[in-house]
């Protein structure tokens, strides 16, 4: 028995979301009185790999095959499944990231392992049964999923578990899984990654704006506020539907659900579909000129005022605060 965690990397580096997943997997291993092993696939330097030890991984299986340098769902799922068998892992933990959403279901079928996706808390364990709390109805509710299979998979939502530094350096071992040619029928031809921007699903601070901004030409002030805070930018559905902002910034029931520490909503009325996507935010600030905007009902702080007046003032206040801290 052991716990296996898939440590996802972006261009050879682990992000905070990976450390969250490792911290979570370590806590699961502790609940089961067993050890945590991590698997990392692709080119990652050994000093980077050993940082996984800090969050509780005792060993890191490193797959450095040329064939697996870029992400191919089928092949990565095979590698992780083989590692799970080799390690006799009874629990596999992954991030509920874009890649994780492709991997976890395939591993579930390969290993006949029950899958709890979008997990937000540690499982409740009773005998061989795990109960996992997950987001459902696009953030409008939570569901408790019971897993009774011998092997279990949990895919953890970003910003849902705190980082816990418990260990030291992990031992790195080379691992060479068998990859069939049929696992490589998809190949990555290009990766485009905006390194200067914070990815919305993992962002801790988000500045989001809606139709109240009146047009795409007014987004510079939203971006300036986001930059001052070190926040990601987001938008409401009407804004992305109108093509003012790209689809990947659309937060809400048919866009992405986020769970930042701070969500600042400017010129967004707060339709039920939008609120679904932000209900897990720790703190919500609403800026709207309409005092009756439904968004104020779920806000922690509210300002009734004109976006074009409030945004520059808030940006200035943030800059002053940052210059003193």
């Amino acid at each position: 028995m052991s716990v296996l965690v898939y440590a996802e990397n972006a261009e050879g580096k682990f992000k905070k979301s990976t450390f969250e997943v490792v911290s979570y997997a370590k806590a699961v291993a502790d609940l089961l009185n067993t050890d945590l092993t991590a698997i990392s696939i692709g080119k990652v330097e050994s000093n980077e790999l050993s940082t996984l030890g800090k969050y509780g991984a005792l060993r890191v299986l490193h797959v450095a095959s040329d064939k697996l340098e870029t992400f191919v769902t089928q092949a990565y799922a095979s590698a992780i499944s083989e590692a799970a068998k080799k390690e006799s892992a009874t629990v596999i933990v992954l991030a509920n990231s874009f890649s994780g959403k492709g991997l976890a279901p395939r591993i579930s079928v390969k290993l006949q392992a029950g899958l709890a996706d979008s997990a937000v808390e540690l499982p409740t364990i009773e005998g061989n049964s795990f109960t996992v709390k997950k987001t459902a109805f696009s953030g409008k509710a939570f569901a408790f999923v019971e897993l009774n299979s011998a092997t279990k998979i949990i895919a953890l939502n970003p910003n849902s578990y705190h980082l816990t530094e418990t260990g030291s350096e992990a031992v790195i071992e080379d691992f060479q899984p068998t990859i069939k040619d049929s696992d490589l029928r998809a190949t990555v031809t290009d990766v485009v990654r905006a390194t200067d921007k914070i990815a919305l699903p993992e962002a801790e601070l988000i500045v989001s704006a809606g139709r109240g901004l009146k047009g795409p030409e007014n987004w510079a002030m939203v971006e300036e506020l986001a930059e001052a805070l070190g926040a990601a930018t987001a938008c409401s559905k009407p804004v992305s539907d109108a093509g003012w902002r790209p689809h990947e910034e659309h937060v809400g029931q048919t866009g992405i659900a986020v769970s930042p520490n701070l969500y600042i909503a400017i010129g967004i009325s707060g339709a039920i579909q939008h609120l679904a996507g932000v209900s897990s935010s720790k703190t919500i600030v609403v800026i709207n000129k309409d005092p009756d905007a439904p968004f104020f009902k779920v806000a922690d702080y509210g300002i009734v005022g004109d976006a074009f007046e409030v945004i520059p003032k808030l940006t200035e206040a943030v800059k002053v605060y940052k210059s003193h801290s």
Partner: protein
Amino acid sequence: MKILVCVSNVPDTTTKITFSSDNTQFNTAGVQFILNPYDEIALAKAIELSEGGKGTVTVIHVGEASSEPTIRKALAIGADDAVRVNAAPRDGYFVSYQIAQYAKVNVFDLILTGRESIDYNGSQVAAMLGEFMDIPSISIIKKLEIEGNYASVEREIEGGKEILKVAFPFVASCAEGVTEPKIPNMRGIMSARTKPLQVLETSDIEKLATFKSYTTPPPRGSVTMLTADETEKLVNLLHNEAKVI
């Protein structure tokens, strides 16, 4: 090109979600069910790819007879025929297994789903289906173009995108950006009534996960209102009280 589109029947996006008094069942009374919005994107893309005699589009749905209006809507939008596997869709594993049984016998070049259903948000069916059928699966795509024997596909990643070349047959789950949903016209609505809808019985598969109960997010505390001139105070509150910056 033969395309299969997997569709689900979900509560309308304006639905207020409530549960039975013991929190074990989702209250469906008075709830309007719709074709899952992401599946509408997948369906529109399939129709686009098959237009002008280039192929056919079959929709498949795992659900009870009560979801037939959703299947008819998919036919009205432009699918050629439909299949319903007659069972309550208990989870992604069950649903994808049923679809795989059908798609192993009736061969398709491309299988499309929505990125997730807006009720359970599992994002499971596309990838599980790919595994059951041992074909590639690309989850959460933003673009799909056919280039001879391959497809060029754009997949979303955190803060960017990946471009892939994929051999047919494969499964992909579609997100916003793939194409715009199509609205059915009168001719489509009329013809949907007579398009073939086949009903199949389910195949047995073990149960790996069970939805036991539900809860709604706790109500949020009261709001502190500030004036437009109090932005400095807001920053202080965010730092000292909320401790988020």
